[in-house]
């Protein structure tokens, strides 16, 4: 998030697009609902599902899956046409040529044209653009509904375009706010868990960076960026990749096209999995290393608003399980490196020393409130809102984003849109949440289908449905609801009994290499 | 069944109020009426969604007000017998007995054929014409066993008989009851013929401040019970807040023993309407509400018709008046509870401050005045403050309606100047029936007085205070020696326990505990300790005043007085 959670209440208008907030980020949804019932904020929801948050919205619009670029371009078209853009912000803070390019791109996205693509009625788009465009401060909130597309980068750029156009960057309550889905997904990115960067997004292959890191670590480093995971799976499938070391992840549930993923892992010479349970992925491993959970360790997580917060060890791990860092240290020393960390805090101090955005942080300073990065010096208060006054890179870049269809569209054989995501009661691959009998009793595998589709295929609520795509079939219970439009089906991906990712398409965004979990074509049948 | 026409009606209701949530109560009532007088869970949920509130809110409202049949099922004819104090004093329990035997059911039950449900209910605001049986929306007053026989047989044939109207009244002042007894007294023509709307004409030419000054100079004190000077209250409104100002007429007449406001609304509605239009001008309000207790359904209709007539006759160019029906809750007579009720909520008092004049309905400055107060305004404007002050005496000015019920020969409503002696009033009401044991002179919530205390009593604020009681709403209940005070005490506290809104702990649990203690005493199982506990509770609540609203003192004061003045009747219960 460019902005912080507390500042949510400063939004005059909030736009939620591609986030089932009350299911996936319940506490943030509570903050937004508070602002709504207190009369501070008006909400716009754009989502193919009529999510719970739609009940609180001034306007709810249902777009066809995968048409976000068209919708946002359409909003910008109307905002420009009516002069609701923030002219001063654009003049002061945006590269003029990129603004011109954007302007000419959105020219053709009239409400009528957008209606044809997205299914959102022209009149409704006009209302949305007016409410959003006239707002003093509008915040934009999204999750994987924006990113998990072959046009994921296009979608993200569109959200940034919109927020720059309306001058909503660098102000409390504004911003582009991806709601991060996992406890430390932000931290994993910040700490160099990416193939192209070291900690704090210092780029691999840049001479100065290579030099700095080699010196700091006293090691010779590879200057070639690595492969993203999705590509690595393909390479493993092809036999090019020989070994995988997987820590605390379960791609055998979370990867697209699981048949493909399983074949890839089985094709490896050597697979190591470090985890807390014998996950679906661990079962395929050659060596499994037992690690500890959040309750058993000290360390830090960085949350969705870039706030670094301390975890305190509460319990002893079971048996001979070890902290992940202890395992890494044992391996490092076995491989001839000379590591000697005594505790997590010592590692954190090393992180601060090498990571500019964390440089001013220490456990003492984090205390019980934490700090937002960037926090470059020991007296810096942290940065709840990014891009105040100026962008890190100087002038902001807008992108002219043309609309593209998703990789796989419904056709005669597979006539229904399939989209996937989360539900409140479970988390990600279920490694943690599915161990709770209580949570399991509250929610099990299902497919959400519309009343019309249910009638068409002749199933009632809780009856079995077969969902088939070009990649596979699952059978699961129907959840028949008015909240999903005719022609769209929704499957939560937490359940090994009916894994949504047997069905999903592993077509990737060309830049981010993110798979298109949110759109593919399926057919529904009575089982 | 909620069909399209009802959805349309609910949509209309939502548009009628400044905030849509206010439509909840009338919408729930619509749904109930369309479903043989029962409110189903499904309908509650649907209404909630249509109005835009949570289903919990709808349920909370539906189970707060006694007129919604949300968790009880009632038959085609719901016979509701008022058994409050005045009714009890006038034979209501015999009516209940008779109905139980006749219908073969107990109170609270429904006949097997689903035709009749028999309930006992609290004060129906019909104390002068007790016993009263309310059948669905209709009051059948002055009931006797013979009349019951013909009522039941008519209902068995599916016919709601025409109700008989036969009230006693008398007036020495000829203001508030001036048109009482005239043919077509409710029509605007009659009203204008007898000099109505002249005050409005005069007021239209006055500055708002001049109207307020006149009312202030009249020194009229609020006729609802608290006796706060109306003109002073108006002066509390903050200036230039940018928010609308609302005028609310409190017509939730529910204090047992009180049935005076109804006389004005039922027989001379334009007097109130004119009073409201003038008062609204004085306080710069464009929207007024009449909050009328739900049981007075037909009177609400009369008021709506009068408002319509006034509009047609161009009397209401700057103001609209909405008649909002309550649904059975005594506490809504408290002004903040009343405001909550108009907002579509459970009618529970708010914390004060802020006071309504600063932050009232929908958070806006609001003035709440009683019917009788507002109905006195046309006289004050037309004839002037001095003419008003010619009635009564200093600090106790003007004319006043007194409702007299219980053991008198001609129970009814009588209009006299403030300060009229108690004895003279009783004389006007035909004298005491039987031997006078005691009287409660200001509605149920004031301390009871013994005959020796009544001798020199004048009916005004100061004299009542001097005699250790209160003028309250001017509802006089006369008690003859046929009745036991502990039993009346139980009946009294049962009323308050039934009506306690349940918001604050001392009232909610205190009233309930007093009921339990008195029941124990009356059942002959009590000890001296129980009487001590009883006194401890009422003394603490009365002396310390620890409840959220005046209801705590409203029950603590009378019970305390009953124990103190008739202690031997209580101690005699201990075996």
């Amino acid at each position, binding site marked *: 998030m460019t902005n912080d959670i507390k500042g949510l209440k400063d939004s005059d208008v909030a736009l939620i697009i591609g986030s089932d907030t009350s299911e996936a980020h*319940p506490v943030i949804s509570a903050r937004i609902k508070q602002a709504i019932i207190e009369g501070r904020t008006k909400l716009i929801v754009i989502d193919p599902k009529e999510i719970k948050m739609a009940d609180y919205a001034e306007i709810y619009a249902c777009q066809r899956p995968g048409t976000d670029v068209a919708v946002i371009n359409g909003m910008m078209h109307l905002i420009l046409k009516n002069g609701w853009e923030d002219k001063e912000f654009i003049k002061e803070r945006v590269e003029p040529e990129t603004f011109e390019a954007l302007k000419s791109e959105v020219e053709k996205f009239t409400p009528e044209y957008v209606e044809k693509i997205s299914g959102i009625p022209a009149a409704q788009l006009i209302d949305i653009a007016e409410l959003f465009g006239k707002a003093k401060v509008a915040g934009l909130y999204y999750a994987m509904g924006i990113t998990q597309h072959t046009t994921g980068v296009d979608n993200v750029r569109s959200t940034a375009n919109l927020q720059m156009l309306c001058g909503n960057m660098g102000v409390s309550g504004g911003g582009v706010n991806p709601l991060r889905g996992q406890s430390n997904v932000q931290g994993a990115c910040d700490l160099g868990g990416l193939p192209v960067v070291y900690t704090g997004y210092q780029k691999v292959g840049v001479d100065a960076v290579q030099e700095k890191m080699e010196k700091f670590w006293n090691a010779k480093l590879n200057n070639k960026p690595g492969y993203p995971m999705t590509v690595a799976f393909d390479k493993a499938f092809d036999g090019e990749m*020989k070994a995988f070391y997987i820590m605390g992840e379960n791609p055998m549930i979370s990867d697209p096209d699981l048949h493909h993923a399983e074949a890839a892992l089985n094709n490896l010479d050597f697979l190591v999995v470090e985890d807390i349970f014998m996950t679906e992925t*661990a079962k395929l491993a050659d060596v499994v290393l037992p690690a500890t959970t959040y309750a058993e360790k000290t360390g830090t997580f960085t949350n969705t608003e870039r706030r670094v917060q301390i975890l305190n060890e509460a319990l002893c791990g079971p048996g001979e399980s070890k902290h992940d860092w202890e395992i890494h240290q044992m391996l490092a020393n076995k491989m001839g490196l000379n590591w000697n960390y005594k505790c997590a805090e010592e*590692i954190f101090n090393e992180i601060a020393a090498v990571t500019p955005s964390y440089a001013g942080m220490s456990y003492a300073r984090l205390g019980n409130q934490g700090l937002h990065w960037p926090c470059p010096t020991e007296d810096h208060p942290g940065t709840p809102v990014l891009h105040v006054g100026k962008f890190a890179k100087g002038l902001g870049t807008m992108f002219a984003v043309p609309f593209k269809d998703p990789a796989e569209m419904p056709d005669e054989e597979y006539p229904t849109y399939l989209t996937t995501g989360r539900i409140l009661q479970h988390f990600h691959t279920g490694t943690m949440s599915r161990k*709770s009998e*209580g*949570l399991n009793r509250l929610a099990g595998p299902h497919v959400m289908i519309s009343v019309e589709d249910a009638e068409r295929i002749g199933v009632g609520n809780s009856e079995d449905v077969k969902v088939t795509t070009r990649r596979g079939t699952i059978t699961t219970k129907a959840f028949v609801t008015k909240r999903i439009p005719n022609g769209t089906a929704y499957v939560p991906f937490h359940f090994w009994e009916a894994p949504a990712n047997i069905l999903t398409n592993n077509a990737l965004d060309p830049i981010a290499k993110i798979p298109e979990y949110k759109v593919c074509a399926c057919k529904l049948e009575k089982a | 069944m909620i069909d399209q026409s009802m959805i349309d009606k609910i949509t209309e209701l939502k548009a009628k109020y400044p905030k849509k949530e206010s439509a909840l109560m009338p919408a729930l009532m619509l749904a109930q009426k369309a479903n043989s007088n029962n409110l189903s869970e499904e309908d509650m949920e649907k209404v909630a969604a249509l109005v835009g509130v949570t289903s919990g809110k709808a349920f909370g409202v539906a189970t707060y007000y006694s007129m919604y049949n949300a968790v009880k099922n009632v038959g085609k004819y719901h016979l509701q017998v008022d058994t409050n104090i005045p009714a009890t004093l006038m034979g209501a329990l015999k009516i209940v007995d008779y109905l139980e035997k006749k219908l073969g059911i107990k109170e609270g039950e429904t006949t097997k054929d689903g035709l009749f449900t028999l309930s006992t209910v609290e004060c129906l605001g019909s104390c002068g014409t007790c016993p009263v049986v309310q059948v669905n929306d209709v009051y059948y007053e002055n009931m006797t066993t013979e009349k019951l026989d013909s009522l039941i047989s008519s209902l068995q044939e599916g016919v709601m008989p025409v109700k008989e109207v036969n009230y006693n009244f008398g007036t020495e002042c000829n203001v508030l009851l001036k048109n009482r007894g005239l043919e077509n007294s409710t029509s605007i023509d009659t009203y204008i013929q007898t000099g109505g709307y002249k005050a409005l004409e005069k007021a239209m030419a006055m500055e708002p401040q001049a109207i307020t000054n006149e009312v202030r100079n009249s020194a009229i004190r609020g006729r609802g019970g608290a006796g706060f000077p109306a003109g002073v209250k108006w002066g509390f409104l903050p200036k230039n807040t940018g928010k609308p100002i609302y005028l609310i007429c409190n017509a939730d007449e529910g204090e047992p023993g009180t049935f005076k406001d109804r006389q004005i609304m039922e027989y001379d509605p334009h007097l109130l309407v004119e009073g409201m239009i003038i008062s609204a001008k004085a306080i710069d309000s464009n929207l007024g509400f009449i909050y009328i207790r739900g049981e007075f359904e037909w009177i609400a209709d009369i008021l709506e018709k009068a408002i319509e007539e006034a509009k047609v006759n161009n009397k209401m160019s700057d103001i609209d008046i909405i008649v909002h029906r309550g649904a059975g809750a005594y506490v809504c007579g408290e002004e903040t509870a009343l405001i909550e009720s108009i907002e579509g909520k459970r009618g529970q008092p708010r914390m004060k401050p802020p006071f309504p004049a600063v932050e009232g309905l929908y958070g806006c400055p609001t003035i709440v005045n009683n019917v009788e107060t507002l109905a006195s305004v046309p006289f004050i404007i037309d004839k002037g403050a001095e003419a008003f002050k010619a009635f009564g005496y200093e600090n106790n000015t003007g004319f006043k309606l007194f409702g007299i019920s219980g053991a008198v020969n001609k129970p009814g409503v009588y209009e006299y100047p403030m300060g009229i002696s108690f004895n003279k009033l009783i004389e006007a009401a035909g004298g005491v029936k039987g031997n006078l044991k005691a009287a409660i002179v200001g509605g149920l919530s004031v301390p009871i007085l013994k005959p020796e205390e009544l001798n020199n009593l004048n009916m005004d604020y100061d004299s009542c205070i001097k005699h250790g009681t209160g003028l309250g709403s001017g509802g006089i209940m006369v008690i003859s020696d046929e009745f036991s005070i502990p039993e009346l005490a139980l009946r009294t506290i049962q009323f308050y326990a039934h009506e306690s809104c349940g918001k604050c702990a001392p009232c909610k649990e205190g009233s309930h*505990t007093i009921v339990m203690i008195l029941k124990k005493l009356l059942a002959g199982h009590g000890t001296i300790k129980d009487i001590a506990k009883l006194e401890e509770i009422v003394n603490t609540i009365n002396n*310390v005043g620890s409840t959220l609203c005046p209801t705590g003192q409203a029950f603590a004061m009378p019970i305390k007085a009953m124990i103190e003045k008739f202690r031997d009747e209580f101690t005699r219960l201990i075996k």
Partner: protein
Amino acid sequence: MQITINGKSLEAKKGQNVLQVAIANGIYIPHLCYHEKVGAAGKCRACVVEIEGMRGLQTSCSVPVREDMVVETKADTVLQAQRLVVDLMLSSGKHDCLSCEQSGHCELQDAAYYLGIERPTCQYGDINREVDETSEFIKIDRNKCISCGRCVAACNNTVVNQVLDFGYRGHDTEIVFNTDKKMAESTCVQCGECSQICPVGAIIDKHAIGLGRLWELDKVETVCPYCGVGCKLNLHIDRKSNKIVKVSGVEGSPTNDGMLCVKGRYGFDFVGHEDRLTTPLIKEDGQFREASWEEAIELVASKFTSIRDEYGADTIMALASAKVTNEENYTFQKLIRTGIGTNNIDHCARL
């Protein structure tokens, strides 16, 4: 500004109410409906005090401080009124402290203790309301409910799930779920905010019942392991059994201000689950066998070394984790980059 409470001059800020100043200065005034998060309700009437120049007793939760205000919290009339209220509450419910889960953490118990009420004296009727145990994680015992309204305010205004409300009237007043449905059949999402804010034993975390009183447990503040909001939570730990008994949200935390979701509050079974991995495992002939750390580490290190030497470092891929700490992601990528010599490191940020 300065105000005086019980003869002591105290610092107060404009906008504070009398109760807040008392609490901040360690002066106890019984209060059962007021809670910092939901504000004053004026319902319980237990927080009454005497204030010079004001008629009758005042609820300290609702009176804003004024310069030089003089407050008395221990006057006889104050204690008399407080005693009546607390006695009535104790009398009208089944507050069986001996077995109540909330004992030692109960605000009604604290008030009774302060006022020296040994046993309720107003018990005249039967108390027999149905206990609702239908919900997976939360037990509702209306026999212990004092109608303070905190849960209703919290459900409607804090977490804004809008399930709880008050139904019925007077002594019959009860908290209801939607249209008085059983909790499990209601729209409740079991976030547990109501249980966290309940001052008595009426709303209780079901799975913690009988596992230890709150004061017997150690409290450790940490961060929720589920989504990316980073809710701060307290783990209430039984040291003897090395188990989490209960989880509560950290009030005042900038991320969640005490709020949690059903997973964060109740979904902690996995930590102490019997299926946890407790020892390294090595697969032989398709079967896992237990191994020592030394053997496992030796095997992994030698395999990685030989693959790197034979096929090159870039044929090894590492997946970091969005569920482990910053420190552990750091050591992991450092190991991969310096030990193996590849930048093939990624995690499932996209999945």
